[in-house]
Each structure stands twice: as C-alpha cells, then as structure tokens.
C-alpha cells in the first residue's frame, strides 16, 4: 500500500513515526537519562550481595549489594549520552567530509575516500582499543573514539548521495549562478542530505549503543566508579554461575534499548521512503551493509 507523496514537513507526523508508543518510550528513556544523569551508583549493601530476584529486589542484587533495577537506571545515562555524542560526531564529521569529497571529487578526495574505505574495513574495535588505550577511558574520550571510528559510514553514504546530486540540473544551475561550491552545498545539498543522514545516524546510534557496552568487556569501558550497563555486563560475566541475574538484567536492558532504536530507525527509514523525501531509494539496513560495513 503506497501512500501519496507528502510534503517533507509532514514527515515527522506521518503514520509510522507518529505511533504514540514510540514517542512514549522514547521520551521516557530521555527523561530517565536526564533524571539519573550524574547520580552515580545505586546505594550498596554488602549484606545483600548476589541475591536473586525477590520482592524487595525485583532483578536481584550485584556483587556489592546494589539493587539491579536501581543500578540499571543509574547506568542508563552513560550509554545514552556516549552514544548520542558519538553519533553526533560521526554525523557531522561524516557529512562534512562526505559532501566535500563528493562535490570536489579530485584526486585527493579520491585518496581520502580510499582511506575511508580502508578505515571502514578496519575492525573498529581494534581502533577503539588502541585509541582508548592512549586517550583514556572518560566519557568524552570514548565518545570521540566511537565517533571517529564510525564517521566513514556516514561519509560513504553522503559521498554517494553527493555524487548523484551533483549531476542534477538544479544543482548545476545553482553552481552556475552562485559560482561558489560551498554556497551550493549549503543551499541545496545539505538540506537534501539531512534526511538521509538522519536515517543513517539512527542506525549508527543503535550500533554505538552495542559497541559502547562491549568496550567494558575488554576492560576499556568507563572506570568502575561510573555506573554503566557495560560494566554491569562485565561484572555479570564474572558472576555468571553464582549470580546470573546481574548479567541477565543488564543484557535484557541493552537488548531492549538496541531493538527499540533499531525499530525506530527502521520506521524512520520507511517513513522517509514513503514520503518521497529521500532522493534515491530508501536507506535501509541493507543499503548500509552494502555501502559500508556496519559494526556492532
């Protein structure tokens, strides 16, 4: 069932995106993030450590007696913040570089793209391990490392789109009229790219969530003073036999969040496709995979 083409302004209210459940959950997550920001760990009681689910502790307790539910809430902000920041870095950097290399298309931009190709291929965890080892494990550093690892994904897509857009008559005309490449990029290309970048970013966001948590399993996540789901998972792995609920609860939370964002991104992509605002085909997971490897 195809809907008639809608104005881009109505994109945000189109049926798929408007689904109220998504908004409720999404806003809820953001609200919780703001509320628990900077609050630190849940209170601990050593006497209560490593318990399973009970009436008092719905998901059990961890190795120092913190309630797992409370700890999950405490750890939520780190994941969301780091992922948002990393995605923003990747989006901005990727767009800038992608549009410049697509527009100017001379030898150095081709060389840059080749390098980008390679960076996309290069295992990002390896990059992350090395960079974090050097830069440290703070929230900013981790976000920076993740963003720097992932910008090629955005750049690839933007570059491809720019190459297509460059050939469009109205862009050729604009270039004739303005004479200045960056002016044309600002006036025509960036607005056209925004939607596509937004969709890519949504998928990237989901990946970053998973990747950020994985870092803790390698010992390069945030320090243990900062509550985070990754750290919880790492701890959970340690106590897998004695107290599986630590791992179980953090795993569930992470799965839920990632699946939620994936679904949201998917809906966004479909809504974009239906509204006809995207230029050349919909961007789905498939295009991301074939245009550039997606990491998790």
């Amino acid at each position, binding site marked *: 069932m195809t809907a008639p*083409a809608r104005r881009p302004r109505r994109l945000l209210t189109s049926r798929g995106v408007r689904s109220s459940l998504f908004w409720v959950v999404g806003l809820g997550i953001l609200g919780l993030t703001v509320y628990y920001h900077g609050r630190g760990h849940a209170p601990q009681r050593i006497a209560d450590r490593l318990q399973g689910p009970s009436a008092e502790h719905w998901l059990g307790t961890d190795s120092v007696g913190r309630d797992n539910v409370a700890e999950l809430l405490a750890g939520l902000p780190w994941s969301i913040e780091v992922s948002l920041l990393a995605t923003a870095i990747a989006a901005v950097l990727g767009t800038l570089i992608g549009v410049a290399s697509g527009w100017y298309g001379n030898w150095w931009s081709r060389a840059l793209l080749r390098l980008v190709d390679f960076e996309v291929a290069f295992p990002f965890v390896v990059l992350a391990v090395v960079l974090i080892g050097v830069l440290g494990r703070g929230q900013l550093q981790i976000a920076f490392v993740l963003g720097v690892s992932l910008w090629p994904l955005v750049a690839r897509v933007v570059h491809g789109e720019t190459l297509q857009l460059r050939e469009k008559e109205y862009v*050729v005309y604009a270039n004739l009229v303005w004479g200045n490449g960056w002016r044309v990029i600002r006036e025509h290309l960036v607005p056209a790219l925004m939607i596509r970048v937004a969709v890519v970013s949504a998928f990237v966001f989901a990946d970053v969530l998973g990747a950020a948590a994985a870092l803790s399993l390698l010992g390069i996540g945030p320090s243990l003073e900062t509550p985070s789901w990754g750290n919880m998972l790492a701890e959970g792995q340690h106590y897998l036999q004695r107290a599986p609920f630590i791992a179980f609860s953090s795993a569930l939370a992470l799965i839920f969040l990632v699946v939620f964002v994936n679904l949201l991104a998917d809906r966004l992509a479909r809504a974009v496709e239906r509204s006809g605002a995207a230029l050349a085909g919909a961007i789905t997971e498939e295009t991301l995979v074939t245009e550039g490897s997606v990491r998790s």
Partner: protein
Amino acid sequence: MANSDQARPSESAATLTSVSVVYRRGRQRVSAATDVSLDIPAGRVVGLIGESGAGKSTVLKVLLGLVKPTSGRVEIGGTDLASVPPRRAVALRNSIQVVMQNPYGSLDPRWTVARSIAEPLRAEARRTGGPSDSAAIRARVAEMLDRVRLPAAKAESYPRQLSGGERQRVAIARALSVRPRLLVADEPVTALDNVTTAQILDLLDELHRDVGLAILIVSHSMSVIAHLAQDVYVMRHGRVVESGDTAAILDSPRHPHTAMLIEASRFLDEWTDGSDLAPAGAA
C-alpha cells in the same frame, strides 16, 4: 562563419571564435569540438542543431563557463573572457542564463517556485552587496511569473505539483529574472509533449520580441529550430558544417548532413503535418 548580411545593430551577445575542446580521459583524447565559430548578435535568436554527440552541449558548456576551451576565444558582450579578471568574468558569465533540457530535474524539489525563481536574484544581490530578501526581489518574482503566464498562486507550489510545461515556464522565469543578455535554451522542449512544446516555443518567441532577448536554442529537431531561430548553425562530429539564415538553409541546404536533418524532422514531426516547415519570421 558569417551569418546573415544584416549589419549588426550593436555588439554581439556572445561570440565563439575557433573554439576547440579536447577532453583527456586517461590516455585517450576526445575531441568534443573542433574549430567552432559561432556568433549570437544581440537580440537575435540563433539555433544550434546536430545529432546527439555532435558537440552542441560542449559549445554550451564553453559559453556557460563549465568547460574551458582548449583553444579559441570566447567573448561575451564583446569582451574577451580570457582578458578580464575572474570577478569580472563571473559577472559577464552571469549575463548568460540557461534553461535546461529536463524539466523534472531543473528545479530543487524542496524549494517553492518562488524560491527557485528568486535564486539568481539572490545570487546577484550577494555579488553586488544588495539585500537578498527584499520586497524588490519578491516583486520581481511575481512579475516573472506573470511574464511566463503562470498564475500568481503557483508561487508557493512545489515542483512536483507542476506539469513539465509549467516547470519549464518556471525555469524560464528564473533565467530571465536577472535580465540576461542571452538566454541559452538547451533542448528545452525535448521532454515535452507536442502541445506543450508549441506553447513553450511561442512563449520564448514572445519574450524575444518583447524584451529583445538574444536566444541560443539548441535542439536536435529542425522543426523546433525552424519555429524559433533566425539563424542556425549545424554541427556534426564537433564541427560546424553549415550556418546561416534559417529560411535560406531550409530552402536549400548546402551540406548533405543538413539536408538529412531537415528530412528527419519532416518525417517525425506531426504537428507540422509533414508539410513545409514554417521558418521563423525574419525580424
């Protein structure tokens, strides 16, 4: 190559003298245009005809500055482009406006008609330091819409709400908003149906008469050229093989290729019902 015997009233809108364009692609050299000389007197409609790949687009690109000629001279308004500083060259270039072939790609789908028409005006304002969102610009947009016979209500429409012919009108309005001395129309009616083609050609003719606009119309169809152009240049394989007054050439073409093109148009175009092609009025 001389065109008509009429004395030129003033300087030419644009002139190409012995222009050649050679592209390099790796180790291959492609001659897109060889020794092309073309003159568009002020206020005259000149046609450029040839098959696909004959070099028409290359000539256009040279005129518009998209491509630098490998050799030869390009003059706009009598001024040699190579001899002026870049800023002046840009200003000169902007006295030539273009309407392109594909009406479905020539307007930014995200922009309203009004915004598209205002674009060259805003660019010009930026160049001259004037205000870029003035009532003057808005008024001019409204005026242009009127000129191309589009209702003022269309100003806030989006391209996808317009037909092909309407989009071409918008493109024409956009091009003419900055009062160019030369309008280059690159196959402006090729993508349109016959009725719309006639309308657009008539519009161009009318604008030419009203404003004294010089037009370079490029087409692969002789009947389109015949409808509008006073002079015509015939191109083949990157060279001008014949040029001169349209009526004269239609009547007795000297080059076999020209004759072939005339025949082909006669055969294909129903709207002249296969009879004599109606040459443009000798104005």
